[in-house]
């Protein structure tokens, strides 16, 4: 961990440096344009200073985005419509609901697939096919249709998150529930264990490492689903709505701050699952 700290920091610093350089490169034409119309010559220093402080830059500099995030999280009241925390909460609640639904659906499908041969043969191929359908492309329709039926708010977004997050759980859990080898299954049989006992005491515990790995992927997918689900609701609330509103009005700083907030949210949630995984596996005596 410690020996990779310096390389990681180097890469991060390099990315930020590149970001500043790209901001100069992308925003310079507009700076020159302005100067030409005002009839002034710009020195290199002035160009750089201008590209890092434009109001609607093509690429905002990191410090502009940081300031915007600070302004919209700390300095705004949480209940305000302009607070990024409020919008993050809207997205987070849809993500968590969708994630919970997706995990439940995924685990129950996996149990059915492992225990029922017909289900294995008929459902499994369709589970895989279902993911080649770009559900995100269908998201607007699902939202509009559910809206017409009278289902609004959290649930439509959560359904899209669910659709995206159930797949990794099914695949991981099927693999995990099948991971006990013949020797272990035979041992359970010699102990005259019932099917339920085999499930609770052998199959379920040995599937845990697989489950947690898939949960991390599912969580990342659930956030994407919630964000895309917010796009067609007419930019009301949520990080996706901030993205859309920002792209309508050319507010690039707002887009980037929403994007970074979404990234931070995703990273935090995935890290939380990782932490939970370490605790659970340690208590089960499976820590590596």
């Amino acid at each position: 961990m410690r020996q990779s700290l310096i390389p990681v920091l180097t890469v991060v610093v390099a990315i930020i440096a590149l970001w500043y350089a790209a901001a100069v490169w992308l925003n310079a034409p507009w700076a020159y344009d302005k100067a030409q119309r005002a009839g002034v010559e710009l020195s290199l220093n002035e160009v750089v200073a201008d590209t890092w402080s434009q109001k609607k830059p093509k690429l905002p500099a990191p410090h502009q985005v940081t300031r915007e995030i600070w302004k919209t999280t700390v300095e705004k009241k949480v209940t305000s419509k302009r607070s990024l925390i409020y919008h993050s909460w809207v997205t987070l609640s849809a993500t968590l609901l969708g994630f919970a639904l997706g995990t439940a659906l995924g685990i129950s499908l996996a149990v059915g697939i492992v225990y029922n041969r017909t289900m294995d043969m008929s459902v499994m191929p369709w589970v895989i096919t279902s993911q080649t359908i770009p559900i995100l492309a269908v998201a607007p329709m699902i939202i509009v249709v559910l809206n017409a039926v009278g289902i609004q708010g959290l649930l439509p977004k959560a359904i899209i998150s669910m659709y995206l997050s159930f797949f990794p759980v099914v695949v991981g859990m099927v693999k995990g529930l099948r991971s006990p080898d013949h020797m272990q299954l035979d041992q359970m049989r010699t102990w005259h264990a019932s099917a339920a006992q085999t499930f609770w005491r052998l199959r379920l515990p040995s599937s845990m490492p697989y489950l947690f790995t898939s949960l991390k992927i599912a969580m990342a997918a659930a956030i994407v689903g919630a964000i895309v689900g917010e796009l067609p609701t007419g930019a009301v609330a949520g990080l996706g709505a901030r993205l859309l509103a920002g792209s309508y009005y050319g507010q690039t700083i707002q887009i980037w701050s929403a994007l970074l907030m979404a990234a931070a949210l995703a990273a935090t949630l995935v890290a939380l699952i990782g932490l939970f995984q370490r605790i659970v596996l340690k208590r089960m005596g499976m820590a590596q």
Partner: protein
Amino acid sequence: MMWLIAGAMVWALGWFVNVRLAALPKSRATSLLVPVIFGLTLVFIWESVVRGLEIQQVLLPAPSVIAARFMASTSILWQDWVQTVVKGMMSGYIIGCIAAFGMALAVDRFPFLQRGLLPVGNFAAALPVIGMAPILVMWFGFDWQSKAAVVVVMIFFPILVNTVQGLQASDTMQRDLMRTYAAGYWKTLFKLRLPAAMPFIFNGLKIATTLALIGAIVAEFFGSPIRGMGFRISTSVGQLALDLVWAEIVVAAITGSAFYGGMALLERKWTFWHPSQRN
């Protein structure tokens, strides 16, 4: 009511046939037939529920209506398909694969990059990259270039991470053997490490197929010329022409499955030696 009963009966019949088929020893025919029967019963249930409960066409069109619409508007669908899939998705997929692959070779060559870039890459692979779409549309304009850019950004890290992992798949013994043959870096790369990395690379390529299609379609929601699958979906939803939307979805599903299946076939052909390909 008749439709609902018919639907339930077809479902029961299909399930019964599948149970019977599944009990037979597994063969190529049964493992193909069972999912097909399951899918057909699902479509029939959809049709019968829509007709039986008299659900309005603007909410959920019946499969027969969608099929009719599909047949009637093939020219629009073809035009959209060319715009989104051929221009946007394929060019982005190819550029993204080459970029990620080159980066992976560099990362593999320099351990410093590997230790620094891989954690960042793993982190980036979990991020909602699709959020970059509005920014890229702003940079590259409304036409297919911006869609290709979104696809590149979406598939870059999954392919990078998988390729780097694959390049480490050959073990020390094999590499030592190459050294005793006096093989240099490039020779070892081409004769040993790239072939050994193929299963991992294909894993990345397969994940990237669906991501690429999603990226190309969703990017069109943020601005596009007046053709393209994402454009058609978002405008038709606004006009409540849901049968056309579903026709586009069918096209997308077929494209996605064919793309994924094609990759899987290539994988089978090129990595036939890998344990996961043996039956």
